[in-house]
């Protein structure tokens, strides 16, 4: 089937619009840190949305229990939805940023979908398509996380890197829409690469949260020890470190089964296409390494009860393996998986 050039162009322009909208959203998130109301407010009220976070899923609490005296424990459930607390906590700049992110996300989805329609297949056949889709998944995933757990202010740390990735995709590794080589013409592309893409999107968000957690935790422990701290205004309005850590954990919990399924689906595909389900191809090897490191992370949290810094480091090591696999292995080391479309 011929490539539909009109749709391919639509896809390209949609991605450009996406980058612009996300960039403006990042600006708005940054303005919130700079000029937002909570920056100047007392620490306790800034932490209120974070307290909600702990109590997500709790039975409806009574209004009024949230307006506790200073010094009360933050684990008291704050006001539930509809009390106006979260709307106030969101702030004008954050609302602008979220709308811009939503706008960018719509353009992003249009870009991915129209690319797929243009080439009559799932649009993740080469590195450019993979990056545009992974960032889309990351934003969708983060958007859901943000709305569900009211972690609005983490947006800067997620949308910011997404803008950079997407910008690089459009400029450095842009690949025109085209047909896939016969090796990729299989319905397993849709199964294997989709699950790997979804998992990668989740792992990207988890890794960014881990970095934010490490910074926030360092800030908190320095503040507790009476040491001089920097960027107080930013950390004061972020959720407490423990909450960011839990968000990161839940994100990995979402991504890990998908990653595992992606590896198993890849093994089935390899068996169908190459006659062996596992051959220690460089990409396979690094997918396995990545899997083991994330499994170690989950294991450390499930049995050793490791939280905090140590587990965040393990998670970042796992993400490092993932990035090594997508960037170094698929572009520099040649193997059976060399489909990046870059030369």
């Amino acid at each position, binding site marked *: 089937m011929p490539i539909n050039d009109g749709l391919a162009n639509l896809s390209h322009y949609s991605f450009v619009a996406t980058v612009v909208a996300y960039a403006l959203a990042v600006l708005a998130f940054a303005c919130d840190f700079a000029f937002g109301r909570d920056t100047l407010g007392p620490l306790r009220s800034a932490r209120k949305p974070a307290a909600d976070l*702990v109590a997500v899923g*709790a*039975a409806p609490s009574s209004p009024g229990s949230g307006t506790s005296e200073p010094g009360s424990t933050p684990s008291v459930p704050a006001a539930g939805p509809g009390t106006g607390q979260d709307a106030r906590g969101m702030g004008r700049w954050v609302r602008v940023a979220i709308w811009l992110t939503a706008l960018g996300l719509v353009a992003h989805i249009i870009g991915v979908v129209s690319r797929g329609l243009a080439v009559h297949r799932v649009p993740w056949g080469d590195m450019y398509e993979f990056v545009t889709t992974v960032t889309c998944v990351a934003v969708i995933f983060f958007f859901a996380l943000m709305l569900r757990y009211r972690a609005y202010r983490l947006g800067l740390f997620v949308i910011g890197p997404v803008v950079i990735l997407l910008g690089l995709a459009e400029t450095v590794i842009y690949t025109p829409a085209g*047909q896939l*080589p016969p090796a990729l013409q299989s319905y397993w592309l849709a199964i294997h690469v989709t699950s790997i893409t979804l998992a990668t999107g989740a792992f990207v968000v988890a890794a960014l949260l881990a970095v934010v957690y490490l910074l926030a935790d360092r800030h908190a422990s320095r503040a507790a020890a009476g040491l001089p701290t920097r960027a107080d205004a930013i950390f004061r309005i972020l959720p407490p470190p423990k909450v960011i850590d839990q968000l990161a954990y839940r994100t990995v919990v979402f991504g890990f089964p998908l990653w595992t399924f992606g590896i198993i689906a890849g093994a089935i595909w390899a068996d169908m296409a190459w006659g062996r389900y596992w051959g220690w191809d460089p990409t396979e090897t690094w997918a396995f390494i990545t899997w083991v490191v994330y499994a170690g992370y989950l*294991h450390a949290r499930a049995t050793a009860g490791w*939280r905090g810094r140590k587990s965040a480091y393990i998670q970042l090591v796992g993400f490092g393996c993932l990035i090594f696999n997508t960037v170094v292995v698929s572009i520099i080391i040649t193997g059976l998986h060399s489909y990046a479309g870059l030369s």
Partner: protein
Amino acid sequence: MRTALVLLFLLAVASVPGSVLPQQGIDPQAVQQYYAAHPALAPLLDRLSLFNVFASPWFAAIYLLLFASLAGCVIPRAFRLAGSARQQPPRAPANLSRLPLAARHETQLTPDEALAAAAAVLTGRRFRLRTGDGWVAAEKGYLREAGNLLFHLALLVLLGAVCVGGMFGYKANRLLVVGDSFANTATALDAFHPGRAVSAADLQPFTIALDKFEASYITSGALRGQPSRFDALIRYAPQPGAAMRGYSLRVNHPLTVDGARVFLIGHGYAPVFRVTDGTGRVVFNGPVPFIAAEQAGLTSEGVIKVPDARPRQLGFAGVFLPTAVDAGGKLGSAFPAPLNPAVSLVSYAGNLGMNSGPAQSVYQLDTSGLRQLPVAPRPLAPGQSIKLPDGYGTLTFTGYRQWISLAITYDPGTLPALIAGMTALAGLLLSFFIRRRRMFVRAYPGPGGRTVVDVGGLARSDAAGAFETEFTTLAGEISSAHRGSEPAVPARSPGRGSGAGGPPALADQTEGE
């Protein structure tokens, strides 16, 4: 489980050099290139088996350790699981408010009624119950241990399935020119790697004939020259003498015969030559498979050996160009499809050296006994000939055919490995995400004829904070069950007393806050 994961991690680290350095089993040519580029380092790396990581003794040591650890783990775990199947929750502690999670409310029910209602809530949530005087203890999450056992057992089965594949499976390769056929016997295969328990007699006795091979390429745009479709039209017979059946063999669409599978893994051109020697006899007439040297234009290289030629044996080293173009005096191929096929040859005469010395590759010419003939270098189009000097004869490039390379594999361990892999995953997820957790309820008479109900909760580790949430929900349900079944009373304001922030309450002493 920790030992298993540490060993898995070790296995992962040990596989890193195998992904960075060229591997003998995957790409022997790259290993040779590495030797040429690093003559000092390569022998050292080779002594450490770094060019054959996945078959090296130290790699085997790691997975044998893993095997031993798993085997040693499974039996005690099975006993523990059997024990826990009948195990009762522990007695409720005396002071529930000391537990990590605690809540308190009051009710007008009697303590026994309150406990019965709480037990009903917990049973409804599938907790295992134990009741005593004035308390209810409940526990949940026994599947964690089962998941753990499942993970270890499944990994054992997975390793077993890999071994079965290595013992009873085989891998083979065969190059097949359009118009030819072959039978799946050890002598007819170009390469045959049997498992330890496989002999040549175990090969499935099928026959395959290649009728036609079609390759399509993208003709315009940025991806020009990239293949878009390969289709090999074959006929095959499962047994000798059986009727031939047609099949369209494609990438991602293998042929399954008798449990063995045949894959299309490569293709190329086989120019056809006719050689007449100095005596006027036709001493060679047939296709010669050439191997692609590059993918963009499929420029292919090969040699023709004519040992029967007289007065001298003849040899030719050549290049086949599917779409020959002259780029500034240099001959090249501009497109992989045969739009303008041409052959360029260097001719030799002398002794091919095929009767003595080590076995020769069909793709290489040993020129030590040969003399290059002074023939003007001129690319041949189909039908054109070279007349060799000194009356050595004539070579005619009569046309070309295409060839495909087939991989034939048989691995009886595949399905067990898949099932084991899925089971290991299920077990791992169960053990990661289910945690043993306990709920305790105590009810006793309080001031004013009311009953005080204490609820406490305990989980060994709560990575996601999920038990906090579950506890809050459960405490809330117990409290509302008590409220729902008591006689109508005026609504009470929450948040009475200290310590408990009204129903539902989160504990004050959540860890790590």
